[in-house]
């Protein structure tokens, strides 16, 4: 029986059906939900705690809390967002115990301020066209279906870039772009203002784009150099 996320394309039931089935103790529904969502939850949990084992325990505790809380789920958010909020609260508590606190309320800090693109990339005030690109960003090679190796490397660059981000930026970009929650959901999961969500997300994306730019420039230089 396959309960890995992404195995086959089982149609995922809408919330109303899923919640009813879970409340009716439908094991297939539970297995489907745990299989589909645990990967994302694990990735997210890992940003709050110190080890992979610890993250797995957070996910485990989250699902136990979900089982216990199912009957009190009111449907004010989607079930997935509700589960994610439980995970974040569980992970935060665990992080605190491990001496890892993330200061969500103190914004903005230095690392969240200033231009997201090196000002040297733009013409200065002495020029006729201040703020214009000195040199346009170089277009990246288009991904082609047969270049799975390149796509894999690109993903590795992105994965690596994420590890260099400050915690809050990493958590916001993970929720928005890796896991696909919308802005409103991310604000509710993290109890962030819309403005702070935007600042953190934009900086994180700009940083990751910069890493990809370096990677493609390096790959091109290597190819040109022989």
């Amino acid at each position, binding site marked *: 029986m396959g*309960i890995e996320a992404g195995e086959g394309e089982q149609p995922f039931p809408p919330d109303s059906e899923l919640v009813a089935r879970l409340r009716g*103790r439908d094991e297939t529904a539970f297995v489907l939900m745990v*299989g589909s969502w645990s990967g994302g939850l694990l990735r997210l949990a890992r940003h709050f705690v110190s080890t992979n084992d610890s993250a797995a325990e957070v996910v485990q505790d989250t699902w136990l809390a979900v089982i216990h809380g199912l009957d009190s789920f009111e449907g004010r958010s989607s079930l997935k967002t509700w589960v994610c909020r439980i995970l974040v609260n569980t992970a935060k508590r665990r992080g605190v115990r491990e001496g890892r606190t993330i200061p969500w309320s103190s914004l903005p800090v230095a690392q969240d301020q200033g231009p*997201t*693109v090196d000002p040297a990339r733009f013409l200065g005030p002495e020029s006729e066209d201040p703020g214009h690109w000195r040199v346009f960003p*170089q*277009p990246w090679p288009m991904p082609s279906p047969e270049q799975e190796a390149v796509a894999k490397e690109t993903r590795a660059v992105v994965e690596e870039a994420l590890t260099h981000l400050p915690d809050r930026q990493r958590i916001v970009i993970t929720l928005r772009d*890796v896991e696909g929650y919308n802005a409103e959901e991310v604000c509710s999961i993290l109890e962030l203002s819309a403005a702070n969500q935007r600042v953190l997300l*934009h900086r994180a994306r700009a940083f990751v784009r910069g890493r990809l730019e370096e990677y493609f420039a390096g790959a091109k230089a290597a190819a040109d150099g022989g």
Partner: protein
Amino acid sequence: MGDDADPGEMSCAQLVELVTDFLDGTLDPDTSDRFEEHLRICDGCDTYIEQFRRTIDTLGSLPEAGLPEDARDALLNAFRDWPR
């Protein structure tokens, strides 16, 4: 936002800070107009946005790990045992 440039024209340096707002559709109408106006005439910013989108797409394609099998089994047991 402190604009020393002509408020009617958006510079590339200003535009790159607004891409996330643009993609989320949260720019006010006037800024949105100036943003799109700039994009029509600037290949550099067009490329920048294209790369931003590609970055987002790549982030959305990262592989996921799963819970270990014994953890999933333990959860299923907990679910079974939870009283109706």
